[in-house]
């Protein structure tokens, strides 16, 4: 029920180590924003500055229009879920959830109402009398969320809440968080290093690296139009293939020439290049594995050798080497292959591949920026 605004926020440790550089972001009311990035990129630090657990070296943080820099965490109207749950080991689940309410001196019957209500939603009613140590990881996680839920806070902060769970439980909890969000209908700020979580949960994703924001955008935007090489490689799995090559312009049409082939840049991207009258020259070409197709020895197809094939179930990941030794990953839906074709796809097999012209990403090799942004 509140907006959060960060203006020129900086975090500096020990006078010279800068953990967060000049962070500017406005988070709207009821928005679900995910900070994502590799470890040490400053995403948790930023979250903790919003929470008030970390001093803000420079800049201001506003919650609901009020500058909260000098407020204690408890006065900021936030709730937070921690990575290791941070449940009080000496209290029962009930007491854990009721802790903040008791500090607010709420009447016990109201507390009872709220706690049992939250427990019901999270499906932990039967564990209310237990101590945290007697719970499984997933149950602890629910208690941690329950503890944050009952606070009726303006902003809900989550610091890598799923990273201590195993893969299966993580998927389950992820969908539960989506449901929770619909129920709570409040502002969420969520930190994770996992791009899948970011893509599935977020209204907007903030991708960070070394304390800088690399891109802010909806999941579609960051996937389809990565601002720079880092975002391109970070979002999407398996990782985008990056190829050093040249951009050439012939008669108003643009082509890339990877591995001796010549592939036209089609669609909006081609038009945009033409509009901008972009010069040719060295570029980095990014192609997502799902945008590479198997082809035959026909023209413009690139010959390569299969090194490893990974069967993922619904799809097949092929690691191939081109003739100059560049390793590429190709993602082929299993449905597209018939039995005989599948049998030929074994290590050592010779293949031909081609790229989908409209789904290619072009980056400046020096600045690593997308040519089209």
């Amino acid at each position, binding site marked *: 029920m509140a907006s959060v605004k960060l203006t020129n926020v900086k975090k500096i440790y020990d006078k010279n180590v800068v953990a967060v550089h000049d962070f500017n972001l406005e988070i709207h009311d009821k928005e679900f924003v995910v900070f994502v990035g590799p470890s040490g990129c400053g995403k948790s630090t930023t979250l903790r500055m919003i929470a008030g657990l970390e001093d803000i070296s420079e800049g201001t943080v506003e919650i609901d229009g009020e500058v909260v820099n000098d407020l204690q965490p408890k006065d900021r109207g936030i709730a937070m879920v921690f990575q290791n749950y*941070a449940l*009080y080991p000496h209290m029962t689940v009930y007491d854990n959830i009721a802790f903040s309410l008791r500090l607010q001196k709420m009447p016990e019957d109201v507390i009872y109402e709220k706690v049992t209500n939250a427990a019901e939603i999270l499906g932990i009613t039967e564990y209310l009398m237990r101590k945290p140590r007697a719970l499984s990881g997933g149950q602890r996680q629910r208690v941690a969320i329950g503890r944050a839920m009952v606070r009726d806070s303006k902003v809900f902060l989550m610091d890598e809440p799923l990273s201590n769970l195993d893969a299966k439980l993580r998927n389950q909890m992820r969908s539960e968080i989506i449901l929770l969000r619909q129920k709570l209908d409040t502002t969420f700020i969520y930190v994770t290093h996992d791009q899948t979580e970011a893509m599935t949960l977020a209204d907007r994703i903030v991708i960070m690296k070394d304390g800088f924001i690399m891109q802010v955008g909806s999941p579609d935007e960051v996937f389809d139009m990565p601002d720079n090489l880092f975002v391109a490689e970070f979002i999407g799995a398996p990782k985008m293939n990056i190829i050093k090559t040249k951009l050439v312009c012939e008669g108003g049409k643009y082509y890339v020439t990877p591995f001796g082939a010549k592939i036209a840049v089609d669609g909006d991207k081609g038009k945009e290049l033409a509009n901008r009258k972009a010069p040719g020259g060295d570029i980095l070409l990014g192609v997502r594995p799902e945008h590479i197709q198997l082809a035959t020895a026909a023209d413009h197809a690139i010959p390569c050798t299969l090194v490893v094939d990974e069967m993922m179930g619904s799809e097949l990941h092929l690691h191939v080497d081109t003739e100059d030794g560049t390793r590429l990953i190709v993602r082929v839906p299993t449905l597209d292959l018939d039995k005989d074709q599948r049998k030929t796809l074994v290590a050592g097999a010779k293949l031909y591949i081609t790229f989908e012209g409209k789904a290619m990403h072009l980056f400046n090799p020096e600045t690593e920026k997308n040519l089209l942004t």
Partner: protein
Amino acid sequence: MSQKEVTSKRHMGLKAANRVSNTAIYILLTIISIVWLLPFVFILLQSFRCETDRGMVGYILPKVWGFDNYIKLWNSDFRRWYINTFIIALVSAVLVTVIQLCMSYTLSRFRFKMRGPLMRFMLILGMFPGMLTMIILYRVLADLGLTQANAVPGLILVGFASSGMGYYVSKGFFDTIPKSLDEAARVDGTTRLQVLYKIILPLAKPIVIYTILTAFMGPWGDYVFAKYVAFGTSAGYNVAVGMYSWLSNDQIGNWYTTFCAGGVVVAIPVTILFLCLQKYYVEGVTGGAVKG
């Protein structure tokens, strides 16, 4: 040796070797236990020796048994010394624990500008022999009238005033309590003070007990400073100083067995307390050594 025998030896060796080494270990442990307990058994036996010669003798089992030594003990200054020591131990246990917990909790949990320099400064201070400060502390206490017959409050004061330096063990323990608990509590709406007594103290029970226990046990063995402060006035002695005086060359002939009785009277309550709280002591000691 045939091939078969070699193979069978290889197969049987593990169990047999184990049996041999285990037997050796049992023998060794038994010897160790005897060596470690024997002197205390001797003290106990000597305390019941009621012959005319109350000095040192060359045998262990008393020829005449009785409680004379304990009666003599009761009628001597020992009663006063015991009460002195007990008061010091009790009061120190409370005060030292409070001070050390304040210190170690702060240094474990707060990151303030002077924290690093402060810890380094205390490390350096600790390298000065404590004995050096005795001379002046004695004179200061003397000025305050807290020496000799009034040694008890003096010893308590000096003992707890600088006890903040011994924060290492409990800081090591506090460091093992995840910081996110503090943070969660602060988000939940506590002040730092409430974090301390609502979250940390309930979790720190082992280290609190450890600190109380060590603080309580310390004064029973404190000799040198107690001697300095009491300075020849029997009323201000603690048990260590008092009983040491019984072993001087001109006293030992009369007081040796009484010393043993005194030793028993001092050791029993402390040992019982210690054995009851052993678990916490071991936790503290191990944690402290590892965390430094």
